[in-house]
């Protein structure tokens, strides 16, 4: 016979007449704080976008830039020169920056979650190295998988960036899709691609080497609406699918066996997510070149601020990434104007020290095992 203490505990568990409305209010409040973080990132991205619109040889003010944009969208263009500059030249760059930051951060957040590894992003899974190799083939040897002209490079980068993913998924299928196996396979492929890229570079002219360098540092200089359209298709549709799987990703965070017992097939989920985020990363890296640290740092900082509930972490990281990348591009364009520092250099300059600071200061170590 259980003692009174235990009987009461079970009474409390089976009771239907409970009132946890205060706790619900507190829960809603905590949820609202997470949504507030997302809102702040959206506003920051909006403000940075406005500021970026003003940057360039032709002077157009902050509010006036938005006015020109509004006029274009509503079909009441007043100044065709200003309209051309804002709509044709400056806006594509902004959308490329926003989409690239958004997408790379989604990739980082999802890869870190599914691979349970703080270093997982488009780089460590080999996606960027694959893209680099594809671009090198196009620039140095003129070899293209598909397309011609400017799109030969993009098509090459895209196709080759998918090879590491296929290797990861195949190895995972053969050996059982453990997160460690997947990231090790990614790193192995990264080394192979990097070595091959370096080998090709040994035999090219200085001019080609220069072109390769330009691509490898990552920049938003060659943005166009066509590029924005292609990126948007991959980034937006990929994000929507990932967002719909937010709760499943939370279940996955409890461990593969627990997840399976809750009705989530961890191997399948991990493979699907890997494919989706790799497509997102490939669509970005192919156009912009290698932009580091956004995918690594944004999810980290966001996780520390709002926690790791993927329903909120993914959109929050994404908006933070969009603001950070566009902000970095802005910094790169004003710091030693009229010279432009490629955005990839700025993100690494900002991201590197930020990451170090996080490692040193971070008390809430998510990757720690309990003592």
């Amino acid at each position: 016979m259980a003692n009174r203490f235990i009987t009461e505990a079970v009474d409390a568990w089976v009771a239907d007449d409970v009132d946890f409305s205060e706790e619900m209010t507190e829960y809603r409040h905590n949820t609202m704080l997470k949504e507030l973080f997302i809102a702040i990132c959206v506003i920051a991205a909006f403000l940075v976008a406005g500021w970026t619109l003003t940057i360039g040889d032709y002077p157009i003010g902050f509010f006036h830039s938005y006015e020109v944009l509004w006029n274009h969208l509503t079909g009441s263009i007043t100044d065709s020169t200003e309209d051309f500059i804002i709509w044709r030249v400056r806006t594509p760059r902004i959308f490329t920056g926003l989409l690239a930051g958004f997408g790379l951060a989604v990739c980082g957040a999802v890869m870190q979650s599914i691979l349970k590894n703080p270093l997982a992003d488009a780089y460590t899974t080999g996606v960027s190295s694959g893209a680099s190799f594809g671009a090198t083939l196009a620039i140095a040897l003129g070899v293209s998988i598909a397309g011609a002209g400017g799109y030969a490079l993009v098509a090459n980068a895209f196709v080759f960036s998918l090879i590491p993913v296929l290797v990861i998924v195949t190895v995972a299928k053969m050996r059982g899709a453990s997160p460690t196996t997947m990231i090790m396979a990614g790193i192995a492929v990264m080394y192979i691609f990097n070595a091959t890229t370096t080998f090709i570079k040994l035999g090219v002219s200085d001019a080609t080497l220069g072109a390769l360098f330009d691509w490898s540092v990552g920049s938003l200089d060659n943005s166009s609406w066509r590029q924005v359209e292609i990126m948007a298709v991959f980034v937006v549709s990929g994000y929507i699918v990932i967002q719909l799987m937010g709760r499943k990703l939370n279940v996955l965070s409890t461990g593969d066996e627990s997840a399976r017992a809750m009705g989530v097939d961890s191997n399948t989920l991990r493979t699907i997510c890997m494919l989706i985020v790799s497509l997102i990363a490939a669509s970005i890296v192919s156009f912009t070149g290698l932009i580091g640290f956004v995918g690594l740092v944004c999810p980290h900082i966001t996780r520390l601020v709002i926690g790791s509930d993927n329903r909120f972490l993914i959109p929050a990281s994404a908006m933070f990434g969009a603001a950070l990348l566009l902000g970095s591009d802005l910094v790169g364009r004003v710091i030693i104007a009229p010279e432009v520092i490629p955005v990839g250099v700025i993100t690494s300059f900002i991201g590197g020290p930020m990451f170090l600071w996080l490692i040193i200061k971070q008390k809430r170590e998510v990757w720690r095992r309990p003592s």
Partner: protein
Amino acid sequence: MATSIIELDKVECGYGEHTVLKDISFTVDEPGYICVIGPNGVGKSTLIRVITGLIDVKSGTVRINDKPLSDYSRKEQARIIGYVPVMSSDFNIMSVLDTVLIGRYVRQKWRTTQADIDVAYKALRAMEIEGLANKRFNELSAGQRQKVSLARGLIQEPQILMLDEPTANLDVRHQIYVSSFLKELASRTSMTVFTVSHDLNLAAKYADTVVVMKKPGILYGIGTPKEMITKEMIEEVYEVDCDITDDRGTPHVVLQEVLGREEYRTAI
């Protein structure tokens, strides 16, 4: 009405080529607190996994409520059987409340409702960790994490709750609390609590039914603690000399010396 809740019929299973469980057959007909005991490596955790559907049988059948486990969809199965592994492998910096709420996945809609919060707080209260609700999961000790995992198992409100060593990281007070809570819960609701334990005295004191496994992954027997926890069983299955005393109607094991047979050393 189902005639049996859990039924294993000549089950054989394992990992790859290696067979862990051999010819296991038993039936659980009534809800209650069931405890699997046996030495290391005899397949206690594998037994829990095979009933939960985490590993497939090589031969034989597992039936839940008279229906083969393979006939259930993953979602249906998740609503009937809850599973809490021995060691939490959670990987998050969510609050304890959010971590527990993940367990509502099989029942919850996209948004968390008042009903979800109610059941989550009831589970936290049941596990005496209500005060930790807003603390981050990654800041907890191993024992606290174990209680969070148990609370998450409870809020799934399954018919069968499978717990792999639910008291492994807990101090004596909490071992007794959790064991007696689960026993009382099983006796007052229609829940079947199926656990693995290394503590023979906890099994003797709280289990309604004890399943004893022995090398090499076979069933020694199933019965009440009084029937199963005997000097003969402990000597044969664990190879340990012991005395059995009576503790208010249940057997109490006082372990003595190892009966060191050479083959036992290499078996673990």
